[in-house]
């Protein structure tokens, strides 16, 4: 059985429809990448999964249970945590307080402040620093740590490489195996297709609010992806 499944998921911003019936599934322990251009609906899809956008109960199922109509503050307690786009750390809180508030939902599990410090050792010295005084890459690591503190079954990472230098992106993705080994299922939303292919077991491509392609990275040809990503057929 899938860990998480959506069927016919839609999303609206006022009159504007952003998602048109997304069917998506991810198995336990799997890592799935969602690719697509700006405005394809990737972030909207993650916001729907976390409950920040309302939906019908049956549209989203976690371990078979309908959760689509639950509010965001209930969803995290059920085991879905998000690393939001743009990091969204709390500027009034220190690094350590940002991590601790990640555990607010009280879910039991292996992650603790000390274990996050092991994963990202730079934090030990900066624990009392206001979170937004860190560099972009370090802030991204705090945001990942904060999400892990809720001991999620499913970790959603929204554009964690956005605006960061390649070496920093590598540092961040180097943490992924440790997260996967802890038994966490991961969804990454990426604009960088190479990066997405490298880390994932399966890829979904979104375009204009619809899934245009789905499959394992080694099964998908360059042209398939180009067509699904840009909607260009046969373009060289």
């Amino acid at each position, binding site marked *: 059985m899938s860990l998480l499944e959506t069927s016919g998921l839609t999303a609206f911003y006022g009159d504007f429809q952003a998602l048109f019936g997304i069917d998506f599934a991810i198995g336990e322990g799997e890592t799935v990448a969602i690719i697509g251009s700006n405005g394809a609906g990737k972030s909207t899809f993650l916001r729907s999964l976390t409950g*920040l956008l309302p939906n019908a109960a049956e549209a989203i199922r976690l371990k078979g249970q309908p959760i689509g109509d639950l509010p*965001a503050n209930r969803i995290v307690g059920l085991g879905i945590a998000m690393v939001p786009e743009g990091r*969204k750390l*709390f500027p009034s809180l220190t690094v350590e307080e940002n991590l601790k*508030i990640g555990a607010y939902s009280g879910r039991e599990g292996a992650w603790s402040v000390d274990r996050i410090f092991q994963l990202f050792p730079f934090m030990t010295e900066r624990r009392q620093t*206001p979170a937004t005084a860190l560099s972009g890459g370090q802030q991204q690591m705090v945001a990942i740590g904060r999400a892990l503190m*809720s001991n999620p079954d499913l970790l959603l990472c929204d554009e964690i490489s956005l605006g960061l230098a390649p070496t920093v992106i590598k540092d961040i993705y180097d943490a992924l195996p440790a997260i996967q080994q802890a038994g966490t299922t991961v969804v990454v939303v990426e604009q960088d297709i190479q990066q997405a292919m490298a880390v994932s077991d399966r890829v979904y491509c979104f375009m204009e609010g619809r899934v245009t392609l789905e499959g394992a990275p080694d099964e998908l040809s360059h042209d398939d992806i180009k067509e699904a990503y840009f909607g260009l057929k046969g373009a060289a």
Partner: protein
Amino acid sequence: MDWVNAVIQGILVGGLYALFATGLSLIFGVMRLVNIAHGDLIVLSSFLCLAIVSGLGLHPLIVLLIVVPVMFAIGYALQRGLLNFTLGPDILPPLLVTFGLSIVIQNALLEIFSADSQKLPAGALQTASLQIVEGLAVGVFPLIVFACAIVVIAGLQFLFYRTALGSAFRATSDDPDTARLMGIDNRHIFALAMAISLAVVALAGVFLGMRTSFDPSIGPGRLIYAFEAVIIGGLGSLWGTLAGGIILGVSQIVGGKLFPGADQLAGHVVFLILLVVRPRGLFPRAVD
């Protein structure tokens, strides 16, 4: 010695003004809600205490044990049942609703208690004083009020910066949507903030009623003092609010001594001067 005396009285009155202002500052800090009914809620607490004092014959300070929890509960219910629905990107609805609430409270108090001036009986505390040096004495009651203001502000400071609930308050204030992703129910957090605000209001209301006479119409005046103390101190700074209250208190009493009858005017003038010189207040919060 007269002037020293005036400054000391002013500082002590400042403690009461800080109590007026703390609750206002707290809810603005947590949810960007400007509570126009704040002053009327202070007066409501005074009348609530009066009703219990005259019914049971207890001392007002003992009745605090009833009034504070009751106002705490009213605050939670008010936020959960009404004010949460006014919060959003538009800042006008909460202003309009609390303005309406202000009128409702004033008229309800007028209906129940009439427009007569009332006072809470403070007993021997009314006149008790401590002689500091020859010719300089301070009242015991103003000292108690000032000490309470310090304890309340220190307590809130601890709550906000040393506890998990405080982190949740600050996180919700920073970014309510992301706070929800952490599992924080912002409606509950907002309601707790209003509850704490009204618990402090209850304290302020009872002290106000023991210090001076009050009637249903004086709420908006207390709101102005509270606003001025908050703005002088700097938005978001609790100790700044105490400083703001003290500056306001000293300005009023010293001003009233210089120009008899002009005490309130002196407070407003000092407030306006400080607003020109330090528009962000004396101790603005570093992160905005």
